[in-house]
C-alpha cells in the first residue's frame, strides 16, 4: 500500500484509462485497433491499481467467480456469432445490407462511418471482454500467490 498521494491519483486516473480502452475497442472498424489492443489497454489500468493498492484490497472488488463468468460469456458469444451464418459457410458475414451494422461505405478514401462492418464490431466486443477478464485474473493470481495468501476457488 503506497502513500496517500499515489492512491488518490490512481483513483482518478483509472476512469480515463477505461474510457480510452473502450474507445479503442469500439472504433475497431474505422481506425487501427480492435478487440485485442483495447483489452490490453484496460489490463494495464488494472495493473496500475494493483501496484497502488494492496492485492488483498483488490481481491474484495474483483472476485474470481465474476471474472470467470465474464470470460466464458465472451468465448460463447464469439462461437455463437461464428455459427450464425452456417447456411452459406462457416464464419459467413450475414449482417451486411441489413439494418443492424449494415451500411456499405463508398469505395476509395472517405471519412469513416461507425455504423458499418457487419458481424465484426460484435466480435470485437466479445474478444475484448474475454481478454480483459482472462489477463486480469492471471495477474491477480500471481500477485496473491507471491504474498502468501490462498487463492480460493
Amino acid at each position, binding site marked *: 500500500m503506497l502513500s496517500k498521494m499515489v492512491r488518490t491519483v490512481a483513483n482518478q486516473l483509472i476512469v480515463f484509462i477505461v474510457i480510452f480502452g473502450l474507445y479503442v475497442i469500439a472504433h475497431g472498424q474505422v481506425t487501427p485497433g480492435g478487440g485485442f489492443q483495447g483489452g490490453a489497454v484496460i489490463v494495464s489500468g488494472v495493473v496500475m491499481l494493483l501496484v497502488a493498492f494492496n492485492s488483498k484490497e483488490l481481491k474484495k472488488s474483483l472476485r474470481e467467480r465474476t471474472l470467470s463468468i465474464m470470460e466464458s460469456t465472451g468465448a460463447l458469444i464469439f462461437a455463437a456469432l461464428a455459427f450464425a451464418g452456417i447456411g452459406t459457410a462457416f464464419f459467413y458475414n450475414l449482417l451486411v445490407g441489413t439494418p443492424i451494422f449494415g451500411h456499405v461505405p463508398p469505395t*476509395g*478514401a472517405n*471519412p*469513416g462511418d461507425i455504423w458499418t462492418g457487419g458481424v465484426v464490431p460484435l466480435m470485437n466486443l466479445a474478444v475484448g471482454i474475454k481478454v480483459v477478464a482472462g489477463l486480469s485474473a*492471471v495477474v491477480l493470481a*500471481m500477485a496473491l*500467490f507471491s504474498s502468501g495468501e490462498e487463492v480460493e476457488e
Partner: protein
Amino acid sequence: MEQMPLNFPFLAAALLVGIAFFIIIFKRNLIKLIMGIAMMASGVNLFLVALGYRAGGNAPIYTDVPPGPMVFPVPQALTLTSIVISVAVLALMLTMVIRIYRHTGSLDSEKSRRMKG
C-alpha cells in the same frame, strides 16, 4: 526512393534471433532463459512485418488515406495472432518458474535437473 543498402530491417531481425539463440544455449539462470525466448519472439515478429512492405506505401486503412499503393495486410494479421500466443506461453512459463523457486529455493537450472520422487 532508392534501395536500402544491406537490407537493414532483415539484418536487425537476424541479429535479434542470433543473440537470443546465444542466450538460450549458454546461460543458466532461469529468468535469463525466459528473456531470451521473449527476444526470439520479437525478432520473428519484426521479420514477419518487414516482409510485406511496398516502397512508398500507406497503411491499409481506407479512412482519409493519401493516394498511393498500400502495403500487404495479411502479414500484419498473422503478427497479431503471433503476439497474443507468445504472451500466453510466457505467462505459463513464469508460473512454472514461481513454483520451481518455491520448491527448490534456487534459480539455477543445473540444480533441478534430476527428477526426484
